[in-house]
C-alpha cells in the first residue's frame, strides 16, 4: 500500500502537498457538480448533473486504486440511482420553474460552512496517505498483517479492496446477491419490467 500513491514525478507539482494535476482537476469537477446538483431547481436537471458527479467521483476512486468502489459508484450511482430517480420523477410530477437555481438559505449555508470549517481543522492531524506515522502501524497484529501481506497474497494494491474482493470475496458476492434480490423484489412490487 505504501508505494501506491507515491508522488508522481515532478510534473505533478505539489500545490498542496502531493495533490497532482489530475487530482486537482477532478476535485474541482466533483465539487462543482455536487454544488450544482444541490442548487439546480429543476429536479430532472439535478438528476442529470448528479450523473456527471458520479462520473467524476468514479474517476477519482479509480485514481486512488479503489476500482471496486469505482465500479460500485458506476453501477449504483450512474446506473441504478439515475433510473430510480427517473422512475420517481415519472410517478410524480415535475414542476416548471422560472429560475434556474435554488435560492440559497444563508443561515443554513453558514451552518454548513461552519461545520465544514470545523472538520477541515482536523485535517492537519490526519496522517498523510501512506505515512509511516499512521496509527494503523502501531497495531502489531491484525492490521499489520494485512498491510504486510495483502500485496503478496492477493496482488491488489489497495488493502481495503483486497479485503472486500479477495479475503472476503464470497461475503461480498453474497451481499451482491442480496442487493440483486432486493432489486428484483422492488421491481416485482413496482410490477414493471424496467429493463425489458
Amino acid at each position, binding site marked *: 500500500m505504501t508505494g501506491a500513491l507515491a508522488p508522481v514525478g515532478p510534473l505533478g507539482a505539489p500545490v498542496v502537498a502531493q495533490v497532482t494535476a489530475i487530482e486537482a482537476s477532478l476535485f474541482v469537477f466533483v465539487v462543482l457538480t455536487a454544488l450544482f446538483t444541490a442548487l439546480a431547481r429543476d429536479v430532472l436537471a439535478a438528476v442529470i448533473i448528479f450523473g456527471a458527479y458520479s462520473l467524476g467521483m468514479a474517476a477519482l476512486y479509480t485514481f486512488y486504486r479503489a476500482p471496486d468502489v469505482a465500479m460500485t459508484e458506476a453501477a449504483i450511482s450512474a446506473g441504478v440511482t439515475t433510473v430510480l430517480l427517473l422512475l420517481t420523477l*415519472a*410517478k*410524480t*410530477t415535475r414542476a416548471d420553474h422560472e429560475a434556474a437555481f435554488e435560492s440559497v438559505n444563508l443561515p443554513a449555508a453558514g451552518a454548513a460552512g461552519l461545520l465544514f470549517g470545523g472538520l477541515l481543522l482536523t485535517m492537519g492531524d490526519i496522517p498523510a496517505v501512506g505515512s509511516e506515522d499512521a496509527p494503523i502501524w502501531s497495531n502489531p497484529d491484525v492490521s499489520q498483517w494485512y498491510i504486510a501481506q495483502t500485496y503478496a497474497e492477493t496482488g491488489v494494491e489497495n488493502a481495503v479492496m483486497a479485503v472486500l474482493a479477495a479475503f472476503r470475496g464470497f461475503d461480498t458476492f453474497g451481499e451482491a446477491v442480496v442487493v440483486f434480490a432486493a432489486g428484483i423484489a422492488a421491481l416485482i412490487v413496482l*410490477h414493471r419490467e424496467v429493463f*425489458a
Partner: protein
Amino acid sequence: MADADPPPGDGASADGPVDSAETSGPSAEASDADATSGPTTSGPTTSGPTTSGPTATAGAIIVPVEPTSTLRSTIAHVAEAAANDGAPALHLVEIASWRDGDPESDERAAAAERVLERVAAWATADLDDSEAPAAADVEVVTAVIGADDYLFGADDYVRVLAEYAEENAADRVVLDPEYTPVGNTTLLQPLEFALSNTSLSVETAPVDRPTRRERFRTEATTGRFVALFGLSLAFYLLLGDPTYWFDAVTGVATAAVVSITLSRVSLDSTPAIPRTPMRIARGLVYVPVLLYEILKANLVVARVILDPRLPIEPTLNRMRVIVGSGLPLMTLANSITLTPGTLTVRARDSDLYVHSLVPWAREGLFDGSLERWTRFVYYGRRSARLPTPRERDDVAILQGDDATEELPIAAADGGAVGAGDESDGGDETDAAESIDDEVTDR
C-alpha cells in the same frame, strides 16, 4: 414502422390515434352515415359467439377515455361488447384532470373535447360495422366529468365515475389497459381496486399493448443461437483469460444464459455462411474509408468551430435512402452521424432526417458516397452502383433560404403543448422503438 400500431380492431381506421385534423373527416362521415342510413346490419346473424348474448337488463357501459396507444383497440372491443350484450348506451367519458376556472383549463377542456369527438366517431363507425343485431340501438354518449373539483387519486376518480354511472343507469366500466389519467401516475390498478368496492362491474379491455417486446421477438433459430453464443463467449474470454479453466467454465455458463434469453431479440437476421463473413470482410474494407472521411470532415468542422465568426449555416434536410431497413439503415445513419457536419435526427422508414451544420457537409451528404458504401458492405459491389440521391431527386432541404419542403415537426410554433402533441401516443412509441431497434441490432 407500421408494426407499432395497435392490433387492428376493424378495417375502417385501425391506425391508432391519429392527428385530430385527419379525424375530422371520418368523424363527419361517420355521424352522417349514422344519421341517414341507419342500421347497416344484414339481419340476424348466426354468429354471436360472445358470452351472454343480448340481455334486456344490460346496463350502459362506461369507458374512461384518455389518449393512449391502445385507445383505438379498446374502443373497438367495447363497441363490439356493447353491441353483443345489447347495452343501451356507451358512455365515453373523460375524467378532468383540471378544474374549471384554472388557468389553461379552457385549452385542456378543448383538447379533451377533441379526443372525445374522435373516440365517438370511432365507436359509431365500429357500431355501424358490427354484425350484432343490437348494434344500431347502442347510443354513443360523450362527457367530461369531474371538472368542478380537484381529483386526488383513485378514490376520487371512482367517486366521480360512480356518480356518473348512477345518473346514467350504467353498471359496467371497461378500462383501457394503458389508462393513466393523470399523465404520469400509474393509476390503473388502484383504480380497478377501488372500483371493485362499488356496485359497478369492472373489466380491462383485453387488447394488446403495442409493446416493443412482442415485436422484437423473432423466431429462435439454431443459427442465431450459435452465433450469439459464440459472440458472447468470445467477448467473455477476451476480457478474461482464455487459458484459465475457471474463466472458460464461467464463460460457457454466461454465454449460455445470454444466448438462451436473448437470442430471439438480439439478432435481426439469421447468419448465413457465405453472406455474413462476406459482409464482415467488406465491413473491414469500409472502416478505413470511414475513418478517413471522419478525419477529413472533422478538420473542416474544427476550423468552422474555432473560427471566431462561427460561419455556420445549419439546416435540416430529408434524404430518402435505398439501403433496406434494420442493420444497414443503422450503419448508414451512424456513419452519417459520425461524419462531421451531418447528424441523423430521425429515421422514418427509408427517410432520413439529417441536420447539417455547413452547406459543404450537406452537399457531401447528397452526393451519397456513404450510402453507396453501405450498400457495398451489405449487398456487394454490384449493388453499390446507384445514382446519387441528388440525381434520384430523393433529397429535400427543409429549412433556410433554399428550403424546398416544409418542416414536418409536430409543433413548429415553438413547441406548444397541444392536443396534437398529447394524442400522438402511437408516434412516440414508434420513435422509441426505433431507438430500441438500434440498440438491439447490435
